[in-house]
């Protein structure tokens, strides 16, 4: 069996005495698109924050490509090849769109903390940033300050920054939240494009997006994963129906 790209082993997170994540076990296979769904307050965003190093786990283990990354700071996890986006847009609002992407590129191309070379002469960084801009359809907004972009454009930029460093494992936290139907369709096409050949873990509320995009789905309820399987298996799973999906799955299957 191929080694899992991402592996969560009996992961726990408590805030004070309140358990939020209660023994999550999950294996994300290399190259798959894996969605995490669940009702509000199930702990989906907390799970992402644990994996990406934003919060420390209370107990348990997180493995990236078989290596333990539990307790590492976010920047080290990012350098090891895991990158994430945020549910609330998290960009550099005063910088241009191009510079936002370039910030995401610099470390991965080895520029580190250099203060002895001009960033403008870092051709490979500029070229990669421009390539990403084309992928996310923001090439025409290249020199616009990111803070004045429309909401959907900022969400695309958020994804652009996330993939800019070329991470092999990508976590997207509700990438289509707050988007109109046509914007969502564009976003799904974009996600499909940029996650080609990579491992994707996505939290999403929009069931049509989830069933459209995911190879496998995990259902998180009250901090525990109650089921993992293909979209068909999840749709057919009685426990999932009972616990959460109900009408949402019906809707998606009729859509």
């Amino acid at each position, binding site marked *: 069996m191929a080694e899992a790209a991402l592996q969560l082993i009996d992961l726990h997170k408590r805030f004070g005495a309140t358990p939020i994540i209660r023994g999550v076990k999950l294996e994300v296979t290399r190259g798959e698109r894996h969605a995490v769904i669940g009702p509000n307050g199930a702990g989906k965003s907390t799970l992402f924050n644990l994996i990406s190093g934003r919060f420390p786990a209370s107990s348990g283990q997180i493995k990236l490509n078989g290596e333990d990354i539990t307790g590492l700071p976010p*920047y080290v996890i990012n350098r090891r090849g895991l*990158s994430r986006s945020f549910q609330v847009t998290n960009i550099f609002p005063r910088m241009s769109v191009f510079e936002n992407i370039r910030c995401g590129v610099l470390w991965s191309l080895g520029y580190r903390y250099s203060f*002895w070379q001009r960033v403008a002469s*870092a051709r490979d960084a500029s070229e990669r940033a421009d390539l990403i801009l084309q992928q996310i359809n923001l090439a025409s907004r290249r020199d616009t300050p990111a803070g004045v972009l429309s909401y959907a454009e900022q969400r695309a930029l958020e994804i652009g920054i996330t993939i800019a460093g070329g991470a092999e494992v990508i976590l997207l936290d509700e990438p289509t939240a707050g988007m109109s139907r046509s914007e969502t369709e564009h976003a799904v096409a974009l996600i499909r494009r940029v996650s080609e050949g990579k491992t994707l873990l996505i939290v999403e509320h929009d069931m049509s997006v989830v069933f459209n995009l995911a190879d496998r789905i995990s259902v998180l309820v009250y901090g525990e994963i109650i089921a993992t399987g293909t979209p068909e298996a999840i749709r057919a799973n009685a426990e999932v129906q009972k616990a959460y999906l109900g009408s949402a799955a019906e809707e998606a299957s009729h859509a």
Partner: protein
Amino acid sequence: MTGGALPGAPTARAHWLLWGGGAVILAVLPLVFSSGASLTMMSLMGFAIIFALSYNMLLGQTGMLSFGHAVYYGLGGFMTAHALNVVGAGRLPVPLPVMPLVGGLAGLTFAVIFGWVSTKRAGTAFAMISLGIGELVAACSLILRGFFGGEGGISTSRTKTLAVFGLNFGPQIQMYYLIAAWCLLCVGAMYAITRTPLGRMCNAVRDNPERAEFVGYSTQMVRFLVFCLSGFFAGVAGGLAAMHYEIVTSSMVGAAPSGFVLLMTYIGGVAFFIGPIIGAVLMTALQISLSDYTGAWQLYVGVMFVLVVMYAPWGLGGLILMHQPLLAGRTLRRVAPAYALVALPVAMIAGGAIALVETAHRLLVNLTEGTAMHVLGVSFDAKSPLAWAVIVVLLVAGVWLLQRMSPRVSAAYHDALQAARAAKGS
């Protein structure tokens, strides 16, 4: 507007023109302002510019508010003074022009030590730690008399070093050119740093530290590195100051210069690279010339700071640069009538306020000089009811007029801006 860039994205040719022009101006200035007093003032401006720009690497570029930046400036100064004395006593073959490097390395060394502690935190915690370190070093400067020279400070002489090309740097004009050269060098270096990967990531850490962590950068390391670089340039400024004054005292590492560099930088404008240069030039000029005219000069500086914080948060540099699009779009003259109109109430308020401050200062502090006043070319008696009535009328009428006219000024500005953009678009 991103922090590190000059407006209008200058091309390589424009860059050379800019730096070449700067060098020519620095070279020609002493021919225009040749008096001893102006040479001294321009020398002070030279190292004030370096000091303020080094401070803005922290505040404007990286969003780090330091209350103790004079530590690196002052220690750079002390180290340079001691080094000058060693070199002078031993007749070591070290020429004066390289001595600011001693200050820079001292600033760098102490920035590495103190920065390792203080840059572990950002925001308010960093500001508090910088305040604590500032107080710590200021206290040490009074205790460690051997190094800091107690109340008398450390005297030195810049003329006892190895002479190069027959220059001994005794005359102020030679010292001015040495400071000007270092100033140009440091300004160029600090500008270049804003355009490196570290410089860009400083801005990223300032704007969104969390996101910076998730693109692979340790915000703590970014803060630490820029703190060290900033300490180096502050130390160079301190070294030049020590060479200029030929004496350094414990006040150089204290809270006063730490506060003054914050004022200079902020009044000039933290969001633009040239802001601190404007602030350093202006505040040095005010500090020197105002103190000749009035004992209340610090009050004026403080009021100016408050006004800038409240009404021009982008600083004077921001006020100037917001007219650049108008200049480019050739619509600058459209704002002239409104500005001329508003000049009257501004002059009334300024005149009234100055008269109020000076009269009050005379009555409360300097009564021994008598009550006969001479302010802004007008002679009056400090206790005369008429004078006080005029002051009140000037202030009240000025404020009233300003309130009525200010909407017109901003309307005129926005019209001109729209027209400039339209002209650019067509």
